[in-house]
């Protein structure tokens, strides 16, 4: 079987993500899902002011840079302006679940017909690995050097528990730590894009992604950390699939 780089990946330049970062893998599976659906000329992405912004150097799609945390709100506006386009917001967990939690919640409540792919590495990546709402209990970060203390810092946020109460179209969690999980996540993205094409409403896919630099571990250990720890607190799977099998 042949495996070739998707045409929608821009090979004339290279995004400056750290070695072993999951962002690059996520961009590849987005472009593969889009190409399989044959809708490359209709995709608009909205990037966040964070590590996700380098996606504009990895993918050839037209991109709007949203203000930090307002990626999903910007994507919702973009969809209203260009309903013929497929709009994909790509915030991180620090953006979508902290400063932008109201954008995320109200897009789900309004059931905006967009796709949000949240790259969840349990830290604020670009600013130096500070604690985010999705930081695991006991996890060491720049602002919780002795580990997240739930009594002091509050409990970890699992967005699926909040959004599962809304009337959104699709809610799932994938990961990119193994080839098998990467393929499953790609199928989730493809399904969510099909739902957007059918006008079903808001889709959010939380993707567990490696951040070896801020987790202070090797790239391979970071993949193992997702398997042994992060996915135990943040379970993978589909939580809402309106009109689907579940």
């Amino acid at each position, binding site marked *: *079987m*042949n*495996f*070739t*780089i998707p045409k929608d*990946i821009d*090979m004339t330049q*290279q995004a400056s*993500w*750290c*070695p*072993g*970062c*999951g*962002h*690059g*893998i996520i961009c*590849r599976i987005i472009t593969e899902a889009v190409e399989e659906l044959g809708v490359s000329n209709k995709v608009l992405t909205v990037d966040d002011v964070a590590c996700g912004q380098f996606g504009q150097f*990895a993918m050839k799609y037209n991109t709007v840079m949203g203000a930090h945390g307002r990626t999903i709100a910007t994507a919702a506006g973009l969809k209203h302006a260009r309903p013929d386009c497929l709009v994909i917001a790509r915030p991180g967990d620090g953006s979508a679940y902290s400063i932008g939690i109201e954008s995320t919640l109200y897009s789900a409540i309004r059931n905006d017909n967009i796709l949000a792919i949240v790259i969840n590495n349990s830290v604020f990546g670009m600013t130096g690995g500070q604690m985010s709402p999705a930081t695991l209990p006991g996890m060491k970060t720049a602002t919780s050097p002795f580990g997240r203390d739930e009594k002091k810092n509050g409990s970890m946020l699992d967005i699926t528990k909040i959004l599962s109460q809304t009337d959104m179209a699709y809610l799932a969690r994938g990961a990119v730590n*193994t*080839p098998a999980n*990467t*393929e499953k996540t790609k199928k989730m993205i493809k399904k969510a894009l099909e739902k957007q094409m059918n006008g079903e409403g808001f889709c959010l896919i939380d993707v567990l992604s490696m951040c*070896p630099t801020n987790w202070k571990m090797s*790239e*391979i250990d970071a*993949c193992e950390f997702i398997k042994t720890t992060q996915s135990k607190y943040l379970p993978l799977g589909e939580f809402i699939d309106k009109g689907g099998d579940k």
Partner: protein
Amino acid sequence: MSKVIVDFKRCKGCFLCTSVCPKGVLIPSTQLGPKGFEIVQQDEEKECIGCGACYKMCPDYCIEITD
């Protein structure tokens, strides 16, 4: 037999490909690439089975596989 094509200029030496290759075709090279990272190399004695695991895990689009 499948063939792995690696663009060493893009490699940042994360070695995710080496960790998932079931046949050990890709291994660390102990050589620095143009970006200053230790890059991967192919073990010529091992045969690629074309599973695509390395392609699926490479975050920098360095790897392609042909039949």
